[in-house]
Each structure stands twice: as C-alpha cells, then as structure tokens.
C-alpha cells in the first residue's frame, strides 16, 4: 500500500481556537497520509480533535497552519467558493445528526446533490432510486424524515452522501445515534457501497467494533496523532512527537 500515491496528504496541521483570551489547540501538528480506496477510522477521547480534523479535510474549516492536499489540490489555499466546488466534485459527507432536509421526501433528499450538480430530472431520479433500493429503502421513498426511524434516516443520509459517487466520503460518528445492531448494518452498507465506488472512507467513531472493521485506525489525543494501527498487518506505528520548537516540553 505504501507504494501507492496518497489521495490525502496532511502535513503538520494546526488548528487553534480562540475562546476569550484562551488559545485552544484543537489540532496540534497532525501529519497523516490517506490512500485511495482505504477505510480509515479516526478514534480518540471526546475533545481530542477528531471532528475538527474531519471538518478540515472536508473543507468546512480553515486550518490555522499546515497543509492539506486532496486529489492534488491544496485545500488550505482555497476560498469558500472553491471549497464548495471541491466538495461538489470530490466529497460526500455523512452526519451524525443525519441532517436531512425536513420538508423533502427520502427520494428528494437523495436527489439534492444531483440537483446541485445540474443532473437532469430523469437521470437523478433513477440514480437516487437505485441508491435507496441498495440501502433497502425502496418502500420508503415517499416518506418525510419525520416519518422514518433513526436508522432509516441515516440510510437516507448515506444514500445522499454517496449518490454522486464521490471519491472521498467523510462520516462523523454516523452511527452515534443508533443502536449497536443498526450500527452494524449501517456500517456494512457504507463500506459496501464505498468499496463498490472505489471511494476512500474516513470515519470518526467512538465505537471499537467499528474501528476494528477499518483498514487503518488513527488515534488522536489532545490534537495529536498518538498511534496508527493497520488492522490488516497488525502493525502499530507511533509517529514522531511534534517539533520541539513548536511546543517546548
């Protein structure tokens, strides 16, 4: 795997939040490579910076310092319109809170990314239907989000994130609001479709059983990567601590 060119390169990424007079280092020099088609899990304690990292990779937040390069493009150099465009072309996002459009039916929700991409009505309906059927929601296409269970809603969310066949799929605790059995099903579905599309999947989770099913697991603590585990080889890598001049010990 090391021979392949990474699709995501993260170099010395720092994010500092200013809360009042306090400076808070949410990310403190993260360096990481992600490879195409990989299923990467980000784990760590609450407040360790997992969501911050993921959001930054999705171009939802600007890094304070450091570089992110995805599919050959420097995210840290982009303005907001360019970031939106980048997401349009490369990214699917699955939310913990599902974040479906409440006024739209399951089918309409799934077609939205295609609507934004200017896909013709017939074609997008076909794609969305295929997607929903694959996720076992063929009989719920006319349901509004409030008329569906959490698991069903998340499946709609997944369909919506994957319908445009993005290269990279981000998911922030996608099963955080679901029971363990449903979590398992949902994860299988995400994995299956991502694999089928050849998409790279980066997922934040607290759930060890999920992390076990990933290709690699990255563990964060206080904004730093403290270990990277390759589940296939069982290798455990501990990266160098961040440069001394950045933060004296």
């Amino acid at each position, binding site marked *: 795997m090391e021979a392949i060119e990474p699709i995501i390169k993260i170099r010395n990424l720092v994010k500092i939040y200013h809360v009042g007079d306090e400076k808070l280092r949410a990310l403190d020099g993260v360096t990481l490579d992600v490879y195409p088609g990989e299923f990467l899990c980000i784990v760590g304690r609450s407040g360790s910076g997992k969501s911050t990292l993921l959001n930054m990779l999705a171009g939802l937040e600007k890094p304070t310092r450091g570089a992110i390069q995805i599919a050959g493009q420097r995210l840290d150099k982009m303005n907001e319109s360019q970031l*939106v465009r980048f997401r*349009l072309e490369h990214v699917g996002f699955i*939310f913990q809170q599902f974040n479906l459009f*409440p006024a739209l039916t399951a089918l309409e929700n799934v077609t939205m990314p295609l609507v934004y991409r200017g896909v013709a009505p017939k074609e997008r309906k076909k794609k969305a239907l295929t997607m929903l059927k694959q996720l076992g929601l063929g009989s719920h296409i006319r349901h509004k989000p409030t008329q569906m269970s959490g698991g069903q809603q998340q499946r709609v969310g997944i369909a919506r994130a994957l319908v445009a066949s993005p290269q990279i799929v981000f998911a922030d605790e996608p099963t955080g609001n679901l029971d363990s059995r449903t979590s398992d099903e949902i994860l299988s579905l995400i994995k299956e479709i991502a694999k089928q599309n050849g998409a790279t999947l980066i997922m934040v989770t607290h759930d060890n059983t999920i992390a076990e099913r990933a290709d690699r697991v990255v563990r964060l603590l206080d904004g730093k990567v403290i270990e990277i585990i390759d589940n296939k080889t069982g290798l455990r890598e501990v990266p160098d601590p961040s440069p001394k001049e950045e933060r004296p010990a």
Partner: protein
Amino acid sequence: MRWTDLVLLSAQNLWRRKLRTILTMVGVMIGTASIVVMVSMAIGINQGNIESLAQTGELTRVELNSMTYYTYSGGEVPTITLDDDTTVEAQKLDDTMVRKIAALDHVEAVTPLMDVWVFTLRTGKLESYNNPQAVLPGSEEVLGMEFAEGGGFSDDMGETVEVILGSDTLSSFHKKNSQVYTDEAPDLDWLNEKYSLIYRDYNDMENDEPKEYEFKARVVGVLEETGGEADWNIYCNLNNIKTLIQKNKSLFKKDSELKVTEYPRGYVKVDDFNYALDVQEEIQKLGISAWSYAQMIENMQQQSRSMQLMLGGIGAIAMLVAAISIANTMLMSIYERTREIGVMKVLGCRLGTIGAMFLCEAAMIGLGGGIVGLLLSYGIGGVVNLVMDAYGGYSSFRSVIPLWLAALGLSFATLVGMLSGLYPSQRAMRLSALAAIRNE
C-alpha cells in the same frame, strides 16, 4: 443547478411557509395596486375625457352668462369673483360687449345668444315645441355644428328668418294641441318645406286665443346628431330676427320677454384649448360670467392629481413597508433554515446558487404580490369606472390599465422583491457551513 430547479425549490420553500408568504405578499399587493390605480387614473383622465370632449369641439368653447339680464333694474348690482379673489361689477352682454370680447387674444369667434322663445316654428299644420334661439352667422363653428343636410346661415340681413334645426328637433314637430307625442320625425323634405315663425300676442286675445302673427322663415340646414346640446335647439339667424323686430317695432315693443338690447348668453370659440382658461378669465374681468369645459377639466385634473398623489403616497409607503417586510421574512427564513443552508453547502451547493435561491424567493414574493395587486387594480379600476359611469357625463374619472402598465407594475413589484432579498441572500451565502450544521 438548473434554473427550473432553482425556481421550483424557491417556490417549494415559499409554499412551506404559506401564511407568512401570503402576509408578506399583502404589502406588495397594496403597494402595487395603489401605484397601478394611480397611474391608470392619470392615463384615464388624460386620454378618455379630453379626447371625447375635444371631439365635440366643446373644449375650445367658452360659455358666456349675463348676470344682469335676469335682474330687475334698481336691484343690487351683481359681482363676479375672479381667480385672484378680486371682484368686478357684472356688465351687460350687449353688442358693444360682444365686440370687446371678439377683440380679445385667442378669441376666434363670438356669438351672443338671444332668447326668441316667443316664436314658434311651423310648417303646414305642424309646430315644433322646441324653443328657438337666435345666434349670429358664423356661430356654426363656435357651436361645433355639423350638417346632415343644407348648411349654415347666409349674410342675408332680410326679414325672412333663416333657421337651422338640431337633429332631435325634427321629432318635435306635431299638430298644434295634439296630445299624442311620438319620437318619430314626420316624413318631410326638411330643406324645401314652407316654414313660418308664429308670434302669439297674449295682449290681444280673441275667443280665448291669442292673436297670431306669421312671419316667413326658411330652414337652411339640419344638424348631425352630436350628443351635445345643439341636438335640441332650433337656431335662428340673429340678423334676420333683428330686422324682423325692427320692422315690427310697434308689435314687439309691448313684449317684455323680447329684449333686444342685451343678451342672456353667448358663446366664444377659442383658437387653442390651452388658452380657454385665460380667455375665460379675461372675459370675467370685463364683467361677464364665463364658464368652459376647460375649467371643468382643470378641476377634474386637479381632483385626479390629488387623488393620484394620495394613491402614490400610499403606494410608496406600502412598497417601502412591503420591502422591509420581505427583507424581514427572508431573514427570518434564513435564520430558521441556517442548518439547511449549512447542509446544502456541505453537499456542494454553490454559493451563487444559494444566493440566487433566496433572491428568487424574494422576487417571487414580489411577483406574487404584484400579480394579486394587479388583479386588485383591475377590480378597483372597474368599480371606479362603474361608479363614474353611473354619475355619467363628462365628470367621470376613468381608470385605464394598458398592457405596458400591467407589465410595469409586475416588474416593479418583482424588482422591489429582489432588492429586498439582496441583503438576506448575501447573508445566506456568508453563513458558515460548519457553524450551521453544528448549531443544534
């Protein structure tokens, strides 16, 4: 994103908040209706009335009224109040005065009008119950006469009285003392019948019947129907009447109803409608009461102008309030949809599209309000026209909404919507996607 999707999504979003959307549209509706009705009445008054009045030639006519004619000698001398609130003493409308008026600027022709209702026009066994009036040759134009048969008066000063018949006077001929009135005109060769003017002397009664004197008369013209007052008049040539009275002095001297030295009324033709009011004022200064349609139209225009001003004011205020309320509605809707907008951004919806969507919503509120407002305008215009028609005649305002005004009204309403949506849509574009999806 396709523009059809954009419009559809915007419409859906508005539909989701029906009540609020409709309430917001009401402001636009009132504003649009006020403005459209205002302009429509301006168009109506300038177009309809002046056109129809100008057609009958009545716009260039000034009517003279003597204020001394009917007052008894020895009574208080009546006065005329001018525009600047000064007063002048009323003067006799006599031949000297007629000459003075004729000498005024922009006066094309003047004719005094003499009441000669002591005469009755007769042909064969038929008499007209219309009372004749006497006017000078040349007044055909002043009075806007158009001839169906024959023509105007000649310059003949003889005592055979030339007569012009108004279109509706033909049906006024009936057998003397007949109780049967019909609207049918008798079948006569009007220009070639033999006519006479009958004078009945009530001071000389025989068997309860006044003594009749018969004078020669000749019909020289029959008028087209004009819709004006000329239709009901029998006009005699004033020159002939004067000669006739001169030659029969002793007979007419006794009749106090037949004044020769002064006239009750008269007409002036002005060369240009725009000077009618000036001429009217000049004549009043000479001591003769004067009135014209120009005066009436000016009053109408003034009334209409103040109404337009009021409507314009209402329209402007309503539009301003509407604009504020559209902006408010949009901001509220953006606030409520913060999360949705954030999700849209995460899903890759372009910033421009998001801005356009909100702009489109605001424009649709404007357009929707505009459409209802326009319908309301047609309704109000219809009612105004109906009421005015009921009051009838020339004193009517009319509401005229041409297609361009409708289009202009809609565009304006839409524009107001878009302008009010400008800031909210900028706000929506600037919302941080992350903050939007984070806030629970």
